[in-house]
């Protein structure tokens, strides 16, 4: 997709994220809005995966470690045709399979996640299997900056470098905020680039809302042969909605009717600027 098409797509995704969060009266709004542009580029421009090849052993894999931001994943998967978008009207409702975290009951979801610090080790296992089978699929995982202190991430980071997994890509959704407040105040993981570099990863920074930069960055994977790739996507929590941006209360806040209408109005207005 062109940058313009991606930009329009993200506006559509943001509207749907809000719509279904409001419908469910639950969800992780801020983080879904910060990571959705990355998912947009991954699914539309980067990964070789879709409903038609989802059972193929050769497909690219995406594992969402920051499972709480499932709303972003669900709207992107629906758009890709993995399931009818109308299914999302049941989000978080009684007996729905569309729970508040990724589950393999939903077509398109690779792994059940939700508890933090789980995505990277599983992605490492997938990537090792690809090397064993001499297959050239790639494994992508999206981490939140708030989940980085989980020790399992650092264990997996060591293993990924040890096994020279240049078919593995970890993307950090660095929106700088977690539930308690600024990530640097809760448990500062900076300089995260130096940390991953010292662990043996090839690291790049990118504006996580710049479609051109994201597409170009993903096109350069692996950044170095024999090294796993770490992409620090600098993002804004609540991106696209003026009153939500960089405001921690929208970590899992649900807009009321007026707030929702304003958000949709802002997003409709953004179409003109694309």
């Amino acid at each position, binding site marked *: 997709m062109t940058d313009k098409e991606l930009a329009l797509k993200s506006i559509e995704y943001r509207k749907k994220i809000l719509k279904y969060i409001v419908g469910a009266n639950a969800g992780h709004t801020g983080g879904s809005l910060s990571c959705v542009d990355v998912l947009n580029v991954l699914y539309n421009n980067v990964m070789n995966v879709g409903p038609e090849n989802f059972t193929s*052993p050769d497909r690219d894999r995406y594992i969402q470690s920051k499972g709480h931001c499932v709303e972003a994943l669900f709207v992107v998967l629906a758009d890709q045709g993995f399931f009818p978008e109308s299914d999302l009207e049941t989000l978080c409702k009684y007996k729905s399979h569309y729970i508040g975290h990724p589950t*393999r009951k939903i077509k398109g979801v*690779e*792994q*059940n*996640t*939700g*508890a933090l*610090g*789980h995505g*990277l*080790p*599983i*992605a*490492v*296992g*997938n*990537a*090792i*299997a*690809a090397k*064993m*089978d001499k297959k050239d699929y790639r494994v992508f995982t999206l981490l939140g900056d708030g989940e980085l202190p989980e*020790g*399992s991430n650092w*264990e*997996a980071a*060591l*293993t990924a470098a*040890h*096994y020279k997994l240049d078919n593995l890509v970890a993307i950090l959704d660095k929106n700088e905020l977690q539930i308690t407040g600024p990530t640097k105040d809760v448990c500062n993981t900076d300089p995260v680039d130096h940390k991953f570099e010292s662990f043996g990863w090839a690291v790049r920074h990118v504006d996580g809302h710049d479609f051109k930069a994201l597409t170009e960055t993903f096109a350069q994977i692996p950044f170095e042969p024999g090294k796993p790739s770490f992409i620090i996507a600098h993002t804004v929590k609540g991106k696209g909605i003026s009153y939500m941006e960089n405001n921690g209360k929208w970590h899992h806040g649900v807009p009321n009717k007026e707030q929702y209408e304003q958000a949709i109005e802002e997003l409709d207005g953004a179409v003109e600027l694309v």
Partner: protein
Amino acid sequence: MGAVVESAVGTKPNQDVFSETLQQLAAMDKNIVAVTSDSRGSGKLVPFGQKFPEQIVEIGIAEQNLVGVAAGLAAAGKKAFAVSPACFLTARALEQIKNDVCYSDNRVTLVGISAGVSYGALGTTHHSLHDFAVLRAINNITIVAPADNFETEQAVKLAAESNKPVYLRFGKKPMPLLSPDEPGDFQFGKGRVVKEGADIAIIASGETVYPALQAAKKLEAEGIAATVVSMHTIKPLDVQLISQLAAQTKAILTVEEHMVNGGLGEACASYLIQHGYRKPFKIMGIPDEYTVTGSQVEILGHYGISESGIAAEAAKLLASA
């Protein structure tokens, strides 16, 4: 059920048999993968690693990652055997077992080595006396503690073909063969009767089955007929066999190398009490305390888990019936 013959051979540690069986399977199936946490020595996986260097993944001492990586390997079609000391595997990586393996339906076999009090004097940090309890509380996992080399070989083969997660628990010491059963006799979820007797049922698992069998022989000389069961599968429990034993004997004694809380005995008790059982019942295991110092045999002996201790407890229980 086979006739009971205590074989003079077949007295390897179950961990050795695990490794040998895994090598047999790996030679035929390149999707068999051993995942280790610096545990290939104690897990007896050195020869496996030498023969199948492409089918072993070394994680280092990082149990959460061990299980997560195994889940990722399984998701990509591998039959992953994640090997680590039982104490660390089932405590430190419990959330990975719960979410990445069981909840996600990733067909990983978790292999807990040096289980129970195998590490003896290394103490509480290294004793795995909680693993049945914590894993019983998790959905979608088969929990197996083989008693002898035969059960171990069969269990490893079944685990490799299982369509759901399996936990295999092995101790360190050589295990005498209990009975010359045919391979078809062994199934997960079906207890193995290694001796029959009408007075009392002794239901044991893992390394406690052999002393339970010896105790039954001692009791026989005293005129007490005991049935001894290797309840190798803790979950799903063979409730059909338990019901049968409850009806046919006067008392039930359970024996396990696990804390009395949450293990085999409580699983049996829970079933029995809810199905109207009102006869004498006793759980033998490690009490809710820090264990004494000693070797595995000394520690178990201290808590009565020995030929004489089990025989005495069985006689006492039967006398109260």
